[in-house]
């Protein structure tokens, strides 16, 4: 039986096959995974905000895309992943409530997705698949046995990306 490792909000976990890393109930947050198919090592990061420099406190680096991604990268490399083989997937970044006048904070999901893309580009890690935006919540998991990233929703069923 594969071990199910829970990743909380503003947290990340790394591991190796046969573990499955899972994060429940993402709204505007994003679950981004890194995976090395050869060593079957990977990680899942659940970020809330795009940029730590726009925040008053930065005590928890896993809360932000810009500080969380380097941490997860360092830890998967530490478990024996190779940076040249790493691939990324992500899901989340919804806007849960539609308002005519959406404020910046309402559009944070979209900004989160953009931030992750920029960071991955800078790191030279390809983004293989994404399922972001829309207006519904997602539970996401990555199976470190095969790199399959599964998105479960209440309204749109379940799919692998």
């Amino acid at each position, binding site marked *: 039986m594969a071990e199910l490792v829970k990743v909380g*909000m503003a947290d990340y976990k790394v591991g190796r096959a046969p573990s499955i890393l899972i994060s429940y109930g993402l709204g505007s947050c994003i679950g981004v995974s890194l995976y090395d198919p050869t060593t079957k090592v990977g990680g899942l990061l659940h970020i809330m905000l795009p940029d730590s420099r726009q925040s008053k406190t930065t005590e928890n680096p896993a809360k932000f895309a810009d500080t969380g991604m380097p941490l997860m990268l360092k830890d998967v490399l530490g478990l024996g992943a190779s940076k040249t083989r790493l691939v990324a997937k992500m899901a989340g970044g919804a806007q849960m409530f539609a308002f005519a006048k959406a404020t910046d904070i309402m559009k944070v999901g979209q900004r989160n997705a953009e931030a992750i893309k920029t960071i991955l580009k800078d790191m030279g890690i390809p983004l293989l698949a994404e399922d972001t935006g829309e207006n519904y919540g997602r539970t996401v998991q990555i199976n470190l046995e095969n790199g399959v990233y599964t998105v479960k929703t209440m309204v749109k069923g379940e799919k692998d990306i």
Partner: protein
Amino acid sequence: MAVSDDILELTPTQLDALREIGNVGAGNSATALSQIINHRIDMNVPEVSIVPLTEVPDLVGGPDVMVAGVFLRVYGAAPSNILFLLPQESAFYLVDMILGKQRGETKTLDFMDESALMEIGNILAGAYLNALFNLTKLSLLPSIPALAMDMAGAILSVVLIQLGQMGDHALVIETEFQADEDGIKGHFFLVPDPGSLDTILSAVGVG
């Protein structure tokens, strides 16, 4: 919920004042709700607690529990967010009750059902803000309500992310409603914006 880790420095007097605000606001809301559905509503003493952001979804049963959430933006002297969360089953029963259907008839929400739930959110928020006004003389106006039926974590993330910009803890002014024999319960959250908590505390003389 309030918004910075300054909340870790709130005095017992200030916490008492916030509890009293929650008490009066929620009491008024419960009365309004009880009049609409013509059933007795029980309300617990509001809890004012300081919780790590990441643990807030556990207050309503965990991040992947299905809930209905009515969200309202509050404008005026102390801008805030209001979130009224009900477990899915409670939301369905409430719709049955308001629209005069057989209990258990509602299994998904159509347009009419959604309107009914949003109107409930509207009335609860209005009653809460009226009470807050009587106490603080701060004029606060709610936006039109928005509704989502989804995972609790996803719905709460809307307010948690805003708090997350300022710190890692939430000040939760939370009340649980219960129409006991009907198995309906809900959680009402008031979430002041950055700065609004100070405004509210000053208005009741404990700033």
